[in-house]
């Protein structure tokens, strides 16, 4: 063995040796040619569009929903219902008591699943690819919110079955005015509300002196680093618009640009743009003041977090609704109608409402919850049964006219939190 060489000869050889041999040249040329060939094949692929707009005859639900069509439908005694998590009452032994009651009363067996985590991902994974290919997406009833784009697309593409208005006695009699003839579905042609909720401001009384009257508190520099906002273009945009004193439902793209500028000003004060786990940050006192959903704060209170309070700002709170609808590939539409109307029976709704504590679509359930279910906390909460103050403060979301409109909105607000 010699003294240590300065550079190992094999390393030197490795560094300086030519690596690109003729074989490599042919290999890469072949690969490139192959890629071009594949691309040429792909060039022939595109994807067909989906008919939109008012061309009713081109839509998949064109012949559905008429009185004659409904007359032909019969109950199959089975129902596939897909919902958001924690929206259905839970009883002992893994059961959903209200669903068991329904089965006992009507003989319809319910396959209840909770696959919906948020509107866009459910649309992209469970609705769009299947329905555009004409394949069933597996459910008869699904639940979509009006504060995001999928509901609009569903209705616009003709992918929802029109409701049988002769089979909705409970709805007609008991449904709250807030969910009857709503702006996102005039005349309840396709949807019935499941639950509603408010997007408002929550704060920790330990650190923030109430009462809070304005959304400007979210721009207050004394809470720098302790403010939580939603990382959701539609919710964030609405808060920005409210801060400018504009009503989101009637706003214009110029308003959006101004709102985006205001939100950019706020950015150094914000701790993070949260998804659904904003409530954890509030509970852990990482944020002292945050955008919030009414039901979460109510439930946090029940869990013992009594320093968390909600604020109803004078500019308004956003009122959203989760809506039941039937995709056009549903195989049991009649059973779906039976269930959707059944849920508007005040006694039934009381049981469901007592569990999930969002905004009840049946005001008559209030009395039942207070007396039969012995739960005055839920019955008397304005977050569950809105009082006139809440109703006056409610604002609706903007209805995007078309995809370009939606794109403008997204391009304005998404860069703030992305």
């Amino acid at each position, binding site marked *: 063995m010699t003294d240590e060489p300065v550079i190992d000869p094999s390393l030197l050889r490795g560094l300086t*040796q030519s690596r690109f041999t003729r*074989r490599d040249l042919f290999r890469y040329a072949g690969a490139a040619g192959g890629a071009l060939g594949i691309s040429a094949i792909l060039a022939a692929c595109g994807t067909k569009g989906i008919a939109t707009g008012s061309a009713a005859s081109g839509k998949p639900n064109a012949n559905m929903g008429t009185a004659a069509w409904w007359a032909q439908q019969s109950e199959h005694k089975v129902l596939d219902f897909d919902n958001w998590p924690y929206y259905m009452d839970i009883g002992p032994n893994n059961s959903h008591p209200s669903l068991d009651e329904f089965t006992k009363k009507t003989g319809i067996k319910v396959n209840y699943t909770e696959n919906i985590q948020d509107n866009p991902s459910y649309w992209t994974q469970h609705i769009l690819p299947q329905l555009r290919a004409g394949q069933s997406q597996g459910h008869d009833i699904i639940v979509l919110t009006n504060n995001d784009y999928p509901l609009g697309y569903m209705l616009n593409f003709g992918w929802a079955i029109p409701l049988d208005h002769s089979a909705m006695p409970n709805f007609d009699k008991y449904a709250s005015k807030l969910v009857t003839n709503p702006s996102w579905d005039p005349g309840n042609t396709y949807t019935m509300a499941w639950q509603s909720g408010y997007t408002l401001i929550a704060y920790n009384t330990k650190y923030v002196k109430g009462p809070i009257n304005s959304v400007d508190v979210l721009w207050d520099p004394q809470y720098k680093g302790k403010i939580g906002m939603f990382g959701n273009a539609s919710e964030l945009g609405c808060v920005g618009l409210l801060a400018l004193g504009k009503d989101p439902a009637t706003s214009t793209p110029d308003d959006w640009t101004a709102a985006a500028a205001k939100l950019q000003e706020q950015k150094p004060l914000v701790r993070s743009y949260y998804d659904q*786990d904003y409530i954890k940050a509030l509970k852990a006192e990482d944020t002292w003041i945050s955008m919030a959903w009414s039901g979460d704060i109510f439930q946090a209170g029940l869990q013992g977090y009594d320093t968390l309070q909600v604020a109803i700002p004078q500019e308004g709170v956003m009122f959203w609704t989760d809506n039941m609808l039937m995709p056009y590939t549903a195989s049991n539409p009649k059973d779906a109608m039976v269930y959707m109307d059944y849920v508007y029976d005040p006694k039934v709704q009381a049981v469901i409402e007592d569990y999930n504590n969002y905004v009840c679509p049946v005001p008559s359930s209030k009395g039942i919850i207070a007396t039969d279910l012995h739960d005055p906390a839920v019955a008397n909460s304005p977050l569950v049964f809105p009082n006139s103050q809440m109703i006056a403060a409610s604002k609706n979301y903007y209805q995007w006219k078309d995809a370009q409109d939606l794109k403008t909105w997204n391009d304005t607000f998404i860069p703030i939190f992305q």
Partner: protein
Amino acid sequence: MERHVHPDLPVEPDEPPRRSRRRFQPAPYLLGAPAILWLAILFIVPLFTMLSLSLQTCDPNTYACTMTWNFGEFGNVISRYSDQLIRSIVYAGAATVIDLVIAFPLAYWIAFYGGRRKNFYLLMLLVPFFVSFVIRTTAWQFLLADQGPILGPLKSLHLLPQNYHVLATWIAVVAGMAYNYLPFTALPLYVALERIDRRVIEAAGDLYSNRTSVFMRVIFPLAIPGIFAAFLLTFVPAAGDFVNASILGGTNNTMIGNVIQQAFLVQNDYPAASALSAILMAAMLIGIFAYSKILGARTIEEYV
């Protein structure tokens, strides 16, 4: 018959195969067929279909997409999201370096001193990662909360300023990534270290090397292929990660993975999402290629 030589000994580059003497061997094709078919059908074909979307133009109103050979999309996407691209590379790089530093002594210890307990230690290394990442990340959120079990006592002892926070900063994101990808670093390092011939180390000792010298001149160079593999298996998935940034990060910590998620799910901008994915993959492949050239490896594939 193939000549199989120990890859760590210096060898001349491959001679081109002599066609006349080579008979067709069905063995490798038969052995590799299940995997190759699986990957070809379930990975290559869907992937290329998806990536071809990057060159198409889609109408958001109708979801109709037509092939327009729109190479401009790549430039568009790079300029819009250059921040996130750079941030992803920096965060993933930091997490990978941290992981390499942490994992190397650990892998070394298990490989050389593990004895019959090697498999036990490997299992203990991996078992925490059988538990869902949501649970692990929730745990870290709880542990690292501003007034939580770690920061709380430190603050009450006045070792930290009262408004100090770890969550919602880049530190939490990088730390989260380093934690979540540690087994991907440790395993290849372990595998490479474990197969080092002990007699080479003995021989070094015979030649009057002390421990430091043995490590620096024998063990470490032999472990370089393992370091390379560990770097790849950690850096590449980390750069595409989005979970840590979304749960542990703050306002300016989004990575390219988050952008791809948004573009895909929320904005339904398939061309942009596909273009970004293609760029991410291409950047990885180019980086791997360049790195391997510098290392002077025979062929990059041999050492992965």
